């Protein structure tokens, strides 16, 4: 057993740390988050030149062919700098969906461009119902000739306004087939996991409309995506009609692990900022860090941060190894880290006093990222229930 990172991974960490310290310091983050794109072409190009946009894609498609344990290192560093922009949506959502569900031709068409930074992608999955399960996917895809017509609205879509291609989850049938593997069909006899299909919808497709939404966390751009009589050819369908849920679920699980890693990195940074401040800020003639009300809170923060890392690393390993308890690992991680990052970033503001409540201080960037991340891919309550199911409570 070795529950640590190897030399290459440590090197990736120090490279990424230096890179984001230089290229994406707080002033840059603030400029980026003010703009609609959340990214500059220059910074995007530099990120791609590091090979990071292709980190998890196979060599044959121009990627580095690395795993989630490697990715976790990079995500932690990105979370540490609250890096804005479409990395997450391009790599972990759109790109990963193409990797998991795309046909050979689709992979060939998109993955090399994503890996090289020449294309951005995203995944339009949730709808205004905000339901996380397969039942939440109601956007209609009607067969028309050899192709399909898509109609409906997607919400909470990351960076759709800058994406060159959107993977859209739609419903091609109401889910009549029983679940695979001989499980009992859910109540009502319907199986919402059946009948979900994934489509590639390129930018500029007639009938596709994208509206950028104001978000609390300005470093994370979310969109409403409207599809009105969007006509797609048969080649837009990813894999088999009706069986898109399984790859989609794999994508969401993996993206969740990556998000947890990003959250770990953010939490670690908040802890560091707070400890540094507590050493220098004086009150009543002493550094505030010498008061137990402050010190004990900092100790609690450390425990939250370290535990978050442990369960996230484990989940990443579980993804790479494809172990049977993979889903359980993901849900344990997301449940734990969602609560932990919220607590840690809140405590960070608290221990800074008034200065922590200013726009000028960076703490709110983390606090807002924590809140947004909490409700991305299911909050702690949702994942605890999934844990309960997976361990047969």
């Amino acid at each position: 057993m070795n529950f640590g990172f190897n030399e290459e991974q440590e090197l990736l960490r120090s490279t990424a740390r230096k890179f984001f310290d230089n290229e994406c310091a707080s002033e840059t983050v603030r400029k980026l988050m003010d703009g609609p794109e959340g990214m500059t072409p220059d910074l995007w190009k530099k990120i791609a030149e590091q090979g990071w946009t292709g980190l998890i894609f196979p060599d044959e498609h121009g990627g580095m062919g690395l795993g989630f344990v490697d990715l976790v290192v990079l995500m932690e560093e990105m979370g540490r700098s609250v890096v804005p922009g479409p990395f997450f949506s391009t790599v972990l959502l759109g790109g990963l969906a193409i990797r998991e569900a795309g046909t050979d031709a689709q992979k060939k068409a998109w993955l090399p461009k994503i890996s090289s930074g020449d294309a951005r992608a995203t995944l339009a999955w949730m709808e205004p119902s905000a339901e996380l399960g397969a039942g939440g996917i109601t956007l209609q895809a009607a067969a028309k000739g050899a192709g399909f017509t898509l109609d409906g609205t997607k919400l909470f879509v990351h960076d759709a306004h800058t994406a060159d291609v959107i993977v859209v989850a739609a419903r091609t049938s109401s889910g009549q087939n029983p679940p695979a593997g001989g499980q009992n069909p859910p109540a009502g006899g319907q199986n919402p996991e059946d009948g979900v299909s994934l489509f590639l919808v390129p930018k500029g497709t007639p009938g596709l409309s994208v509206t950028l939404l104001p978000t609390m966390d300005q470093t994370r751009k979310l969109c409403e995506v409207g599809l009105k009589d969007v006509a797609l050819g048969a080649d837009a369908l990813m894999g088999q009609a009706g069986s898109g849920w399984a790859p989609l679920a794999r994508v969401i699980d993996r993206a969740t692990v990556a998000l947890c890693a990003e959250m770990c990195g953010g939490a670690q940074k908040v802890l560091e900022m707070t400890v540094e401040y507590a050493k220098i800020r004086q009150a009543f003639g002493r550094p505030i860090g010498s008061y137990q009300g402050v010190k004990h809170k900092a100790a609690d923060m450390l425990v939250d941060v370290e535990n978050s890392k442990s369960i996230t690393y484990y989940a990443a390993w579980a993804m790479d190894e494809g172990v049977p308890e993979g889903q359980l690992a993901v849900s344990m991680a997301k449940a734990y880290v969602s609560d932990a990052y919220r607590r840690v970033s809140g405590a960070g503001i608290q221990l800074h006093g008034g200065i922590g409540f200013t726009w000028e201080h960076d703490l709110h960037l983390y606090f807002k990222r924590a809140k947004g991340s909490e409700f991305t891919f299911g909050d702690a309550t949702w994942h605890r229930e999934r844990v309960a199911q997976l361990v047969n409570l």
Partner: protein
Amino acid sequence: MDFALTPEQTSFRDEVRSWLAKNLPKDWSDRMRVGSDVPRPEVYDFLRTWQRKMYDAGFMGLTWPKDYGGRGLTFMEEMIFQEQIALAKAPPVLNILAIGMAGPTIIAYGTEEQKRRYPAKMLSCEEIWCQGYSEPNSGSDLASLQTRAEKVGDHYVVNGQKVWTSIAHQADWMMLLARTDGKAEKHKGITYFLLDMHSPGVTVKPLKQITGDDEFNEVYFDNVKVPEANILGGLNNGWAVGMTTLMYERLALGFGLQVRLRIALDGLVDLAKRTKKNGAPATQDPNVRQKLAQMWIDTEVFKYTGARAVTKLLKGELPGPEASAGKMMWVEGHQRLQELAMELQGPYSQLGRGSRWAVDGGVWQYSYLRSRANSIEGGTTEIQKNIIGERVLGLPKG
């Protein structure tokens, strides 16, 4: 990152597994199922036999050197062993203070003679050990201790009192911290002695705990003679030696407590499945499901944070003050678990042993009460937070 076992480790795991399958006392696993996690006085004899059995099978002191009665294996085997113990819900180790603390400290600081004399008998449970640190006026502030040891000829004479000394009434030996230089700065005048509890002048008075059991004691020393050869780690060096013990204690906690927490959680889940709430098993109640799932997550998180610490150990790094975080987490988790067990029982949680209505014969009431000590024994939670704040995070002292 790799959680896979090597072929050797796999065969070790299988060896442990099949031994446990053959040798685990049946009636015990029924008792463990309901979450009792600490050796109770009424089962001391049974536990002594059990530990001896594990020793004879070669499973005690896995990481200790062969020369001193161990098996010379790595922490990896220790972890595999502990995991199998948890899966099998095996009884706890009685001589845990010896194996978790005294032994490793003697192996770290002892003379060759001491290392050959003591550790093996700890493993076999021939000699039970207790820890004589706390005093009536020195608990968290351990370095203020007042029990004195004065040199007379080739031995020391000990006078004073210890308190809260767990299983002193069963113990053959004590890890004793005593003041040997009254004039030195308080951390510098302390010496670590290996004290024979059967020496004349040692009086042990059991103290009743809130559980009703006598598990800890007052220990009085009235001119107790200790040979000079029983000093561990050098005169006036007791603070460093004693801290090593505490570090090992928290490390042992990291291994052992994860296992105990897992066993207790399995017991809790089982209780929840048997308990009816609004006419259905409590596990169907959304609120209970949330709490149980969180317990499950926390137990696993604890395991993986422990695994990260073990990875450091396997790379040759010593356990550091991070161990305090493990102790703190376990305490919080275990106390919450026991509270949840009470919550599940509702009004029945009021009934204890002897009542025909008591759930599981009233054992949960015992473990609930016992869990209160977790945040006090082995250094209070407040002290652990100070250690993390000051030694891990580098915050200034108060």
